[in-house]
């Protein structure tokens, strides 16, 4: 809009302020009276019969007031100029290579319903918001890594005929959600971290949303993968990793409240890998020993009960530490 607006002239001109005089007024204590575009004014504006000053005020106002902007654009679309505008818009979008958006068409049909001018281009659809909520992990290399691990296990089992592929997948499954948490949140993982930390939705809420997204990808993929691989007799089932995975993830969040998510996930993931691979270094029957150790971690109600208790304890610690995510994590 290039129309000169009287409000704009009140702004001091660019460049240095000329003299060290009194401080310019800040309009202290004078909130503007709420003014809105009436239907009558919107109609006159659409017809082009509104006085120039009224048109200026209206144009300035609709820049910041969505309901009024919707009212005015509905009035314009309903006026004689409506079909022309719709045609111009469609032509412009086609020439720019866009698919014709359905919204303007439906809006011009039901011109009386106030539709925000930019609703057709809104980036805030339900799916967009869901996509935003899941955070960096599901956009980045982590999701590729999960798919590669599952695919690799299938390759080993069916391509190389390796019988232990299922146990191998089970052994690495608990650390994949940990890795997802590590690349989802915090100063090292999220480029927007400092900006999100200053918002009401940042902090623990965002971390939990993103962790949930990570688990929502991990749990079905890894469990189904382990279930479809050939079973080894006497070895725990495909779902045996779920409680350890949950416990380790919650432990990473709780520990992350002290040292940051990346360091916490690295510590716990490294610890789990050591515990699982440690016996492999022991002796000649290493592979059997490793499988036995893994089975002892995962099989039986005592082991699973222990993981459940650990998960509960970590969740409780996380609740106690929930406020620590309100500020930037320690360096």
């Amino acid at each position, binding site marked *: 809009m290039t129309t000169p607006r009287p409000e704009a002239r009140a*702004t*001091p001109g*660019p*460049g*240095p*302020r*000329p003299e*060290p*005089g*009194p*401080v*310019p007024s*800040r*309009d*202290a*204590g004078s909130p503007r009276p709420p003014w809105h575009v009436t239907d009558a004014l919107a109609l006159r504006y659409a017809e082009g019969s509104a006085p120039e000053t009224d048109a200026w005020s209206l144009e300035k106002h609709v*820049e*910041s007031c*969505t309901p009024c*902007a919707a009212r005015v654009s509905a009035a314009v679309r309903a006026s004689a100029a409506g079909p022309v505008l719709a045609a111009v818009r469609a032509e412009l979008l086609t020439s720019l290579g866009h698919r014709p958006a359905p919204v303007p068409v439906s809006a011009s049909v039901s011109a009386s319903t106030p539709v*925000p*001018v*930019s*609703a057709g*281009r*809104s*980036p*805030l659809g339900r799916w*967009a*918001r869901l996509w*935003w909520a899941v955070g*960096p992990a599901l*956009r980045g290399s982590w999701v590729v890594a999960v798919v590669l691990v599952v695919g690799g296990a299938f390759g080993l089992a069916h391509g190389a005929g390796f019988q232990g592929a299922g146990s191998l997948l089970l052994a690495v499954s608990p650390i994949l959600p940990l890795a997802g948490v590590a690349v989802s949140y915090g100063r090292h993982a*999220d*480029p*927007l*971290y*400092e*900006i*999100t*930390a*200053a*918002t*009401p*939705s*940042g902090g623990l809420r*965002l971390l939990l949303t993103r962790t949930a997204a990570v688990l929502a990808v991990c749990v079905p993929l890894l469990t189904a993968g382990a279930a479809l691989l050939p079973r080894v007799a006497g070895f725990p089932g495909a779902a045996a990793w779920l409680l350890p995975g949950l416990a380790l993830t919650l432990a990473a969040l709780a520990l992350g409240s002290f040292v940051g998510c990346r360091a916490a996930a690295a510590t716990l993931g490294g610890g789990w890998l050591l515990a699982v691979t440690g016996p492999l270094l022991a002796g000649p029957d290493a592979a059997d020993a490793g499988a036995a150790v893994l089975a002892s971690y995962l099989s039986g109600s005592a082991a699973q009960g222990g993981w459940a208790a650990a998960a509960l304890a970590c969740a409780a610690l996380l609740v106690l530490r929930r*406020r620590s995510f*309100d*500020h*930037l994590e320690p360096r």
Partner: protein
Amino acid sequence: MNPSPAVAVTGLTVRHRRTVALDRLDLSLGPGVHGLLGPNGAGKTSLIRVLATVAAPSSGRVELLGGDVASHRDRTGIRRRLGYLPQEFGYYPSFTVREFVAYVAWLKELPADRVPAAVERAVRRVGLADRIDARMKTLSGGMVRRAGIAQAIVNDPDLLLLDEPTAGLDPEQRVDFRELLRELGRETTVVVSTHLVEDVAAACTDVALIEAGRLAFQGTTAELTSLGGESGAPDDSTTHAVERGYTAALRVHRASGVHRASGTHPKEALR
């Protein structure tokens, strides 16, 4: 206008491991554009981070927009009315400018029906309207900085904190940006950390000068300028006058600091 100023800080101390970034700072800021000046390492970013509620103070009391940042409930309310541009900030490279700004609007809990218009207005105000659907990774440094300013103002904040906002802007963009600052400062409290004295001369109504974690000077830009005295040089300008005022205020503060507590403050004791 308000019974309580937008920013009321008393006895604010911030420590990073062993160093003291802010040392029992008292500061009160009302509406207007406040330039936060000071030598490198004086504690400007530490102060902005505390005011942005992203860093917790080691001690002291911080009240923003009438709420106490130490209280979780108040802090959430404050954050909805806050705009913050960090000195260095990242972005998701595949997001468009519109998505980037809308994402922050969503994080700031703006009602969804107001977001599209608010995003377009914010992007227009920083002069990026023609690139609104360009991906962030295709933008130049100055454009990224302007997108950063757009995300800070998308919720029409009552308190706007900008850490080195003019870094990376070319001279023409800087002039436009100062214009925007003056416009914003008429209704809200704007705190601009900068090391460019001309930013202050052109856009700030008030100045807070920080040196070694303490407040060295606070007053209007005119008062700072008058500290510098008259200059006989024929090419004297407002910027030069503010520069002289800045130097004079620092000198006075350092002299009084040495008298007051010689040896207690490592940075001052060196001088």
